[in-house]
């Protein structure tokens, strides 16, 4: 009963009844069209520069980046990163087909377990859905192949990202999801959970001074795979 009472209280405040059908129809059309607003000029760049901007922004937000020529180079890049940080070579990996297709056996020292992350997980591996150059933001939607806990519980998260999936602005990432994603439960496109992740976890709650490593990963490492001919290659 509360529902109608609340809606009526709102209508009373707005000094009208239920919206007339023609107006409701216009609002439904706006929802369906979801018009874009101003997109800041900073990300309106040629592809190669857009990718550069993304990488710069990740580093600005205290993430680290590595750029490799193709999937075959990922195992070595991951192994080197872990060794360089003095981290163990055990990883919990999202059960994503793109991660599964990587020739891990070339680095037998790396031990991968597939699944969701647990509280004891030290290093996790995720496959990014897309990334946003504007602020160096990774787009990590949930589905059976991309568990959310992979982004949350590990001390160190490594994210593999295809260069072709870097877009300029958030709006472009929403349109990718709208075009590519299908949610069985709702019939819509929105996955249960979409995390936009910009750098490693931090807190400024102590004297308003930034300190890395709050509840989420202390380190966020992006391995960018050059698969986009239009975007230039790693040097």
């Amino acid at each position, binding site marked *: 009963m509360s529902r109608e009472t609340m809606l009526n209280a709102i209508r009373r405040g707005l000094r009208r009844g239920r919206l007339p059908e023609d107006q409701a129809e216009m609002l439904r059309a706006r929802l369906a069209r979801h018009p874009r607003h101003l997109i800041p000029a900073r990300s309106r760049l040629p592809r190669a520069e857009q990718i550069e901007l993304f990488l710069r922004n990740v580093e600005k937000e205290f993430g680290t980046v590595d750029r490799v020529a193709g999937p075959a180079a990922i195992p070595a890049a991951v192994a080197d990163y872990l060794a360089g940080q003095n981290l163990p070579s055990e990883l919990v990996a999202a059960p994503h087909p793109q991660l599964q297709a990587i020739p891990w056996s070339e680095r037998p020292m790396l031990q991968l377990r597939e699944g969701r992350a647990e509280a004891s997980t030290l290093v996790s591996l995720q496959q990014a859905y897309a990334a946003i150059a504007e602020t160096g933001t990774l787009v990590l939607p949930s589905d059976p192949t991309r568990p959310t806990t992979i982004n949350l519980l590990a001390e160190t998260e490594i994210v593999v990202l295809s260069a072709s999936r870097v877009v300029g602005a958030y709006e472009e990432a929403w349109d990718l999801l709208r075009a590519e994603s299908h949610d069985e*439960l709702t019939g819509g496109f*929105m996955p249960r959970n979409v995390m936009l992740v910009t750098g490693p976890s931090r807190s400024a*709650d102590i004297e308003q001074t930034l300190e890395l490593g709050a509840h989420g990963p202390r380190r966020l490492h992006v391995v960018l795979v050059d698969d986009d001919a239009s975007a230039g290659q790693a040097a």
Partner: protein
Amino acid sequence: MLATSPAFKQNARRALSDAGLQKALAISKTQFLQRRARAVAAMPEFERLREIGRDIKNHTLTNLDFYLEAWAEKVERAGGQVHWCETADEARAAVLRICEDAGARTVTKGKSMISEELGINEHLERHGITPVETDLGEYILQLRDEPPSHIIAPAFHLNREDWEASFRKSHTDLAADRVFHERRDILTEARSRLRERFLLADVGITGANFLIAETGSSVIVTNEGNGDLTQTLPRVHIVLASIEKMVPTLEDATNMLRLLARSATGQDFSVYTTFSTGVRRQGDLDGPEAYHVVLLDNGRSAMLGTEFQDMLRCIRCAACMNHCPVYGVVGGHAYGWVYPGPMGSVLTPSLIGVDQAGQLPNASTFCGKCESVCPVKIPLPGLMRHWREREFERHLTPSTVRVNLGLWAWFARRPSLYRGATRVAAALLGLMGRRRGRFARLPFAGGWTGGRDLPAPEGDTFFARYARRQRAASR
């Protein structure tokens, strides 16, 4: 806490002579101002984004009933449940019912101002359920049994020493030689303590920065990742959201997000901006099995169609308090209720009654800084003036029994606050009768005397001290 709003001046006077608080305010304030200025300078389109943000919120508010219905339909389709709650009582009951149905013993919590407004923690505790705050700032306040003093930085009023002292007192198993020299040491201690709690919790409660009609999503914005752990690990996720959090589409939310972090912490984007839509899907390896939104009105619909409708655009970024000269010297607790600073001075009288919070709209120098930084262009000084005029016209008498009873009830549910407030009330009595006029010596005197309803000054008032500080600072 609530009943101390009427004693704003006394609270403020105490705050001015609290050395620890003054130190914390001085450090924190400059941090916020510099960071926001840098972030805004790096976004040449910022002014245009503000105008768009204002227009999006105005459009949504004008059609709020439509968008709420559209949103609720999407939530339900995603396996979620919406609990429509007109009052704080209904919302508390809804939260408790969900927790009890889930057989919950412990509940983890992300930062939520609605939770403060409802007094959820006290309510759960009284029914044998343990709430655990997981935002670092909220966690320390829970250990200290204090309310937040800022809407995005709840422990704004504390110094590093205070953190260490609270940990030593509450974490009794800490080794005596354990050091907390660095902020990092404090962070590590909190992280490891809270990890255990995250894993045990049966229910996770978060707030929402936005609700999206297009997709039926709730959005949270955090830097720590505590909100995400809170809504991902337990079986049940409860979202506490008030009706004005609504925006129509992802594009609308995106414009608001471009404004939020820059205005709040001066970041280009917060670390975690997360969109939650319903329950765990088939085949998912994690995520909650149940998703509830407790949708709260609690006085907001009554602001629609009035001059205070503009206030419902607020996205709780805290820029107005960070830039407020009054907040900057008295801190958040002096405002006496959940929402401090300029936004609190406008919102609090709307939500708890002008007879309780009528002093707050006077807590302004009318310098206009708040309005000039507000990302959704809320005319805060103008709205404070409206309250002053209304208060004058009503010739306030302490006869609004209903609100007072409501206040008493709110308050009685929070024993520690109740004790604090009776202390303040006693101090207040002791101060009555000491009266001295000092208004001619105030800065911005034109702004002050423009308000016909300015109460007679009492003793060595906050305003007088404020004036002295201003003079000292400008020498």
